[in-house]
């Protein structure tokens, strides 16, 4: 691997990310999967970086999953998106930040489509007006939330309590970065680092002290692939995709996987359990799995937040071995205690995958 070669490509794909005043839209599914992630993002941005981030309870789904599952036509998804833009316009913002990769891809795709077919944009404006009497301006910048964390990775590193270094060996942690497919594969120029070697997560890992692993199936989808997972008959393909990725990264013995998409961490986390139960195979050390984190969770960890406060107990694969390696202290007894100190109850332990 020639690192300079990658750097050359990264240099070709830099994107302008505004440094303040963002209109933030959440993901539909992340709050169920890993609710700590978006909460921590807002906390880091507002509390730590002192940025102006606006979010509104009026925003809805972007329609991306339905669109990609072929259940709604393109005009519908465009009108939904137009409404989100209208909310942004009404709130007086022009920098649009999406928490979800599918949404991000969806916004970019729609904006590019309007650029090519302006008559379509006019039609959508009419439809939006008919539907809810709203008008919108197109956002000046569209960014993904990970772009912002990437932009401020060095500031975070400066305030970090922990580095991504194995405290037993002193070696940098080996990290697999997994980028959501819709981040840059459709429009390489719209992602940091392009589609072939996206830099958005690599930059965070490098900046926070870890080592990025480049394994053969790095480009591969996590396996969610809407139509694969949502149709039960196809679910085996979803699982097989994930399996292929794990088989490919296994020889590198990664310490954890970092992701920037709602579906990826969830499927890479949960499918490890299914693979373990059906195939008897686990990928971490000593029968554990490989922890899969979102970039917000990782940022919070290095900044020294309590693992249980950021919701790591909701991961299927136990994160404790990773916390031990980094040297983050935690109280196992606190793991299943809610914010109000109420006991959350214990999940049933899997048969094969070691979880505690």
């Amino acid at each position, binding site marked *: 691997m020639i690192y300079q070669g990658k750097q050359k490509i990264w240099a070709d794909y830099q994107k302008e990310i505004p440094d303040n005043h963002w209109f933030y839209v959440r993901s539909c599914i992340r709050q169920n999967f890993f609710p700590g992630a978006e909460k921590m993002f807002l906390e880091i941005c507002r509390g730590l970086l002192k940025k102006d981030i606006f979010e509104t309870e009026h925003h809805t789904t972007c329609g991306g999953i339905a669109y990609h599952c072929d259940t709604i036509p393109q005009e519908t998804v465009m009108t939904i998106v137009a409404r989100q833009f209208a909310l942004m316009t009404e709130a007086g913002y022009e920098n649009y930040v999406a928490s979800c990769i599918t949404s991000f891809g969806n916004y970019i795709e729609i904006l590019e489509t309007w650029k090519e077919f302006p008559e379509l944009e006019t039609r959508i404006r009419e439809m939006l007006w008919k539907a809810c009497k709203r008008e919108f301006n197109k956002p000046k910048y569209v960014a993904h939330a990970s772009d912002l964390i990437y932009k401020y990775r060095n500031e975070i590193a400066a305030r970090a309590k922990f580095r991504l270094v194995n405290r037993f060996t002193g070696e940098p942690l080996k990290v697999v970065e997994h980028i959501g497919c819709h981040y840059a594969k459709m429009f390489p120029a719209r992602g940091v680092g392009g589609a*072939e070697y996206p830099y958005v997560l690599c930059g965070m890992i490098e900046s926070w002290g870890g080592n990025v692993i480049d394994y053969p199936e790095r480009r591969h989808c996590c396996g969610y692939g809407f139509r694969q997972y949502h149709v039960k008959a196809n679910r085996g393909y979803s699982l097989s995709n994930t399996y292929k990725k794990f088989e490919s990264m296994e*020889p590198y013995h990664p310490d954890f996987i970092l992701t920037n998409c709602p579906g990826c961490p969830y499927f890479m986390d949960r499918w490890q359990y299914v693979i373990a139960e059906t195939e008897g195979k686990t990928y971490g050390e000593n029968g554990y799995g490989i922890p899969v984190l979102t970039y917000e969770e990782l940022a919070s960890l290095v900044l020294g937040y309590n693992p249980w406060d950021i919701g790591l107990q909701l991961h299927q694969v136990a994160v404790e071995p990773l916390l031990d390696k980094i040297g983050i202290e935690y109280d196992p007894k606190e793991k299943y205690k809610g914010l109000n100190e109420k006991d959350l109850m214990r999940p049933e332990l899997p048969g094969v995958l070691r979880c505690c």
Partner: protein
Amino acid sequence: MKENIVIIGGGIAGLEAACQLLDLGYKPIIIEKSDHLGGHVADWNCLFPDMTPAGDIVSALISKAADANIFLNTEISFVNKLQDSYNIMLSNGISIITRIMLVTTGFSVFDASKKEEYGYGVYDQVITNKDLEHWFNTGDDRRVNDSAMNAIGFVHCVGSRDEKARNSQCSKVCCITAVKQAIEMKQKFPEAMVYCFYMDLRMFGKKYEDFYISAQRDYGIRFIRGRVSEVSENIDGRVIVKAEDTLSGKPVKVTLDLLVLMAGMVCSQDSTKVANMIKLPLDSDGFLKSADNVADIIDSPKEGIFYAGACTGPKTVPETLAEARAAALKIHLYIMKK
């Protein structure tokens, strides 16, 4: 004869045309940007289909063209159109007034790093056809590991027939070059498996098909019909190549010790630069536009300006040489007519 004839480009087309013009009694001027003559052919090792040493061809041309006025390391700074001639200002400060120019600016090898998914410049064991010829010539390339060469792959059509690479044209010679280089690699590494990933095999020229049959029958080179989709590096640093084996209708992957990208031919920047200065049109394939692509490939649409070789599109060495001879004759007749 005191007529100034300016040949722009000292590759084989320029040299051959100069030789012919010298024989006809003229004293042409060759302007060459680089520090040596012979162009791309000078970087090549052997030429298909008879494995003619490229060096022999080039050195014979250079020695025959030695009497021409040759400016190395020289570029054209600007060109002024006069009444019925041109004033050419060279980067070395010399200016030439001429009414006849022969454009032999040739082609550029497609920049394989633009096909990011193939990892040229990123993976240790990915090289181009040109790099391989360089290795044949000098034996110097750390990416080619002699001691562990068990599997070698050739990817056809890199930057050719690819709208994403902004070149939908066929570069014509890469198929046969891949066959040639595959044979040469098999000769050097008889135990290695050699794969060629192709979309179509275009064996159009004299004895090319024989060469292809020989690659199959005598060297056991495996031709896989399918374009390589992506290349990755595995833990021991070898490259994994993925493609569809379209004949089986199945995805195929293989681990290789060396991957050679058959980078195609694109119009060189020098050609476009010259075209801009003299206001020559470009054809839809990105190369210089001839007066007529069938009947008159050597004439440009402008009087007194002629083409030879790959500046008008991908050409083989014999085609280039033939065009250069034709151009020399055309120039001679043009002068005689006045």
